[in-house]
């Protein structure tokens, strides 16, 4: 069994599990869908055009991509058919091969799942893509866009037909190394771990300020060094105390 619940502004697919602990998957909205589609469109266009240009140049035996004046079966089979197949069968093939993902979806961090949270069946993925004929009607996926805006589950007609959802890929979340012993509570442990993980990405002033504030809360009585390296060293000692 599964149901849809609103979590903040994002609906979530809540799936019952045999363990008794529900699985929560955030449903992707029209923005994420559009971004993934545009990325996939660019990728398949580049792939199809690359094939066309390379195959045409090989066929013509020079850097010329013009079709022969007299239609030729070899040109058709070696140049046109593969590039058309790459363009039109991209979603059909890749969604099956990559278990509900495509390169564009992967970049945006979304994937297709069945109502049970598992990878959809091949039949469902094919049905989802066949209904692109309706979703893309009359131009630029207007029907699909309206459908995602109006439906509670933010799904297009193809998803309704296949019983699928586009959800955020949650595997991207990363857990920093967490200290335990030297900090006041679990939240502070997360702060130390996250600050050390993002140390290089932060501006020097910002990381010094954050490090001082965390260390002041963790050990209020100690004096604080001014040096950035020493501050980091203290944070790492907290970490070492927790993980040892």
């Amino acid at each position, binding site marked *: 069994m599964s149901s849809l619940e609103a979590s903040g502004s994002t609906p979530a697919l809540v799936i019952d599990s045999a363990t008794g602990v529900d699985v929560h998957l955030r449903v992707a909205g029209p923005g994420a869908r559009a971004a993934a589609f545009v990325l996939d469109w660019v990728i398949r266009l580049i792939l199809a055009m690359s094939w066309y240009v390379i195959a045409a140049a090989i066929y013509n035996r020079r850097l010329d991509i013009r079709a022969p004046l007299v239609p030729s079966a070899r040109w058709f089979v070696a140049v046109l058919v593969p590039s058309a197949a790459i363009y039109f069968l991209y979603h059909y093939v890749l969604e099956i091969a990559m278990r509900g993902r495509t390169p564009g979806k992967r970049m945006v961090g979304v994937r297709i799942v069945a109502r049970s949270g598992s990878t959809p069946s091949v039949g469902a993925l094919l049905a989802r893509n066949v209904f692109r004929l309706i979703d893309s009607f009359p131009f630029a996926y207007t029907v699909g866009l309206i459908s995602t805006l109006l439906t509670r589950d933010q799904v297009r007609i193809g998803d309704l037909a296949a019983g699928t959802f586009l959800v955020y890929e949650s*595997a991207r979340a990363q857990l920093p190394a967490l200290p335990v012993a030297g900090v006041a*509570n679990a939240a502070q442990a997360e702060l130390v771990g996250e600050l050390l993980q993002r140390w290089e990405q932060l501006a020097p002033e910002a990381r010094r300020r954050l490090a001082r504030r965390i260390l002041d809360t963790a050990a209020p009585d100690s004096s604080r060094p001014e040096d950035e390296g020493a501050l980091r060293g203290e944070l790492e000692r907290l970490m070492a105390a927790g993980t040892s």
Partner: protein
Amino acid sequence: MSEASREEALARALIQRAPLWRAASARLQRLAMGGAREVTDAVQAVEDYRLLARDLASARRLIPDSRTREYLEAAYAEAHTQVHRSASHPLYALWSLFRDQIPQVVRELRPYIAWVSVLFALCGLAGFALVHTYPELIALFASPDMIAGVERGELWTEGLLSIAPASVVSAQVFTNNIVVSLFAFCAGFLFGLGTFYIVALNGLMLGAVFAFTAQHDLAGRLFSFIVAHGCVEVSVMCLSGAAGAAVGEALIRPGAGGRSQSFQSAALRSGKLLCACVLLLIGCGLIEGYISPDPDFPLWTRLTVGVGYWLFMVALLKGWLFGKSRAPEPIPA
């Protein structure tokens, strides 16, 4: 010990288990890449699933607004996907589709196939009668070049191979027919009206073109061109129309599960028939590219190919080509 300090101690104990979660996630990712090869891999995945479930339940209560909980949610969702991943047997699935499932769908869709075929035939007769009575109406169904050619006593199908090679003609024809067939199915989403429009329009066009060519004594030549591929092509149009009509009826008269569930169930069930339709249309395209436009093939050969391919279609849809079907006969309502 106060309640707050007890909860804090539990939270600290929980985050100390992070190395276990990382190890479980890494094992599950390896499993996702390569699948479970040994029973111990599968057992370990289930153990990891339980471990993550237990700790996620604690994290949701003790540290709800934390990165740790987010991480556990993600790892648990991934574990859920891996543990519930079905076994993959693509060849057996394909075999079963053609041997058991498609014949079952055809049996279920019999009334729809009959009604859509009647609609197609009636529209064909209507188109014939319309153009036979008012010849100027052919302009609604055919292009000016086509009309001018027929009026000169030439069929547009003659000399097709001098314009393009047979492979090109075949691919263009089957691509176009597959798109029309898929569209006839999908248009069932408009409560069946879209499907009926496509089937009726195709019937009208066929009837109208036959009436027009008959007026110029070209109907026999048109029949000779069409017969090899047309028997199956028209049948496939009716089959995909029937699948679309089933989708339309599921929306008009949904079952107990509601309109959405009914639509999904009909689309997935009757959509299986489209796999057979696509294969048959590729065959039609090859016949239309290599046999139909070639004047070297006499009418009896074309008739044999047309009827033979139609019988092949019947055998495919009945599942006879793949051994005895295991699907039971549907229980009459």
